[in-house]
């Protein structure tokens, strides 16, 4: 081993020995690190659970594993549909690029529509999202959907499937005509009449429907080809592409493609503002808790290191007398802190791992929180990015909070320290 490397090893060994001499301080700081690390990991996991549960739920319900849309900004939101078609629409050159990437997709037309109330002879207030899909092709992917009434009628061009929530709200029945006002490609608002052939709902997550004053899934599914004709679009035009699969690198390529062509790529949870808001809120609560626990760590570490280093003044003074430079002393003390922080973080990971094993059957946080996690159970998981951020935040906090106590040791006057010790 090279002499310099050996010296570093010996200095680190001395640092490790020094750590072991303050068991009470170590226990207190270690406990705060354990709390801090677990707050990071837990909140990160909760947010990730919310994101993944919603993504999985929506992929099997409607959105697809991903969605490439010509709509911009909030207009991509499925629950607040845009009433005007985007320009330009998706066209064959984009499809060719997706095929080059090996991505499996289906074309859709999506536009907001206003319901015409036949009985009252007026427009109803709440818009719905009219979605043109090639139902026989997409049906096999949407395995979280079930027909609660009627049937799928590909043979009937004007046939539509309506969401149960909407059917209840508007009192629609299978076999009835449904008139929707929609803006066509030229911007003319025209009434189109469809025939309701079936009523749909989710197999799971039923409790999520009707949780707010607006329906979460205000969908009316029409035939892609027929809707295209009604809107006056070219044969292959689409507003959205549902992405069902592709090679692992496809998502990055799709995002790049979207940026280059002024499109938007998003996953299910990003296509519903209310859901995205819930996930962001969980992230926000997590960050708030993380900052709070880091402040606790700063205060604990600062005070205990101030006391701990003060207790070692004579020893540090002796090292100065033996020829140590302030930066060597500072390096030794910082090494102690980093080694301790890394070890404590490692132990925290172990505790978190045990916690995740104990709760491996999944946690339910009560029915009130069903909406936050798409009605699914929570599984504690280690999110690598969160673990990385937690590690850097904890080690960084330990270094920052100890910088002043360490700085004070570089100002120790050995003569004064020895005189103090004599007294």
């Amino acid at each position, binding site marked *: 081993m090279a002499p310099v490397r050996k010296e570093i090893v010996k200095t680190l060994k001395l640092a490790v020995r020094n750590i072991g001499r303050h068991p009470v301080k170590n226990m207190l700081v270690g406990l705060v690190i354990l709390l801090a690390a677990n707050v990071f990991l837990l909140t990160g996991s909760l947010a990730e659970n919310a994101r993944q549960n919603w993504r999985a739920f929506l992929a099997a319900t409607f959105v697809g594993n991903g969605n490439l849309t010509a709509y911009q900004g909030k207009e991509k939101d499925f629950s607040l549909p845009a009433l005007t078609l985007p320009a330009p629409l998706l066209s064959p050159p984009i499809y060719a690029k997706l095929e080059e990437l090996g991505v499996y997709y289906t074309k859709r037309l999506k536009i907001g529509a206003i319901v015409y109330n036949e009985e009252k002879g007026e427009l109803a207030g709440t818009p719905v999202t009219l979605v043109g899909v090639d139902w026989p092709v997409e049906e096999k992917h949407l395995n979280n959907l079930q027909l609660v009434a009627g049937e799928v009628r590909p043979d009937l061009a004007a046939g539509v499937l309506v969401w149960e929530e909407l059917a209840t709200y508007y009192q629609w029945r299978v076999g009835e005509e449904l008139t929707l006002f929609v803006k066509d490609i030229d911007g003319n608002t025209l009434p189109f009449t469809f025939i309701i052939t079936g009523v749909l709902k989710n197999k799971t997550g039923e409790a999520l429907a009707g949780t707010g004053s607006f329906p979460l899934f205000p969908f009316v599914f029409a035939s892609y080809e027929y809707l295209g004709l009604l809107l006056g679009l070219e044969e292959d035009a689409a507003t959205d592409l549902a992405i069902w699969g592709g090679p692992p690198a496809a998502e990055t390529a799709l995002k790049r493609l979207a940026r280059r062509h002024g499109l938007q790529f998003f996953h299910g949870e990003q296509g519903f503002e209310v859901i995205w808001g819930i996930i962001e809120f969980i992230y926000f609560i997590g960050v708030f808790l993380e900052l709070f626990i880091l402040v606790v760590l700063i205060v604990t570490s600062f005070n205990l290191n101030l006391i701990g280093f003060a207790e070692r003044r004579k020893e540090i003074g*002796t*090292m100065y*007398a033996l020829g140590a430079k302030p930066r060597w002393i500072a390096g030794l003390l910082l090494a102690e802190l980093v080694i301790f922080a890394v070890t404590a973080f490692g132990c925290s990971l172990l505790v978190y791992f045990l916690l995740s094993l104990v709760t491996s059957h999944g946690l339910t946080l009560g029915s009130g929180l069903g909406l936050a996690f798409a009605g699914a159970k929570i599984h504690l998981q280690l999110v690598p990015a969160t673990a990385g951020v937690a590690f850097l935040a904890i080690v960084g906090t330990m270094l920052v909070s100890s910088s002043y106590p360490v700085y004070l040791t570089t100002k120790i006057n050995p*003569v004064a320290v020895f005189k103090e010790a*004599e007294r």
Partner: protein
Amino acid sequence: MIQLNEIRKTYLLGKTEVPALKGINLRIEKGEFVCVMGPSGSGKSTLLNIIGGLDQPDSGEVVIAGQTINRLNRNQLADFRAQQIGFIFQSFNLIPVLNVYENIELPLLIKKEPISEKEKHARITQLIEEVGLQAAVNHRPDELSGGQRQRVAIARALVTRPQIVLADEPTANLDSATAHAILALMRRLNEEEQVTFIFSTHDQSVTKYATNLYHLKDGRLVD
């Protein structure tokens, strides 16, 4: 080799000025075994600290091996101490988490001595033998007697092969027999290694080991 010219040092105790050294002139040659004797508060420790570069005089000049050390900055003084000086303290000042071997090795680690591990080991082992601590190599300071601790401190002071060893009342915390044994050891090492030793004491009985004896009283050298 060590030249002190008109060294003055005053401490402030609150608002009161306490003169510790009042114009010390002293010359010590290489290889001497010097005793600075005086009562408590006479300025012995201050004198040794100034020679060792731990403290700065208010005025005067400290020249060691041609180098005026009171003009050096903090880092240069640290280098000077690491290269030229070995310290032995009254209360030993060993590092409690290190064993005998590691305590002796510490100055080499601090100095970053560019010698091989083999040479380092040979040097430490030889010193352990010379101070008679072969049986206690792996013991920590709290497992050693006062005399053994001071032996470790002596070996630690010599491991970097310094020009000067400064011992501030090295026998003050030891019983009489151990004190004489420690002084005899220091004297032997002084002769063998040709290292200049300067030790302070207020114990008349140990002055017999010195080749030169200086009396310090109220901050002045007296005959």
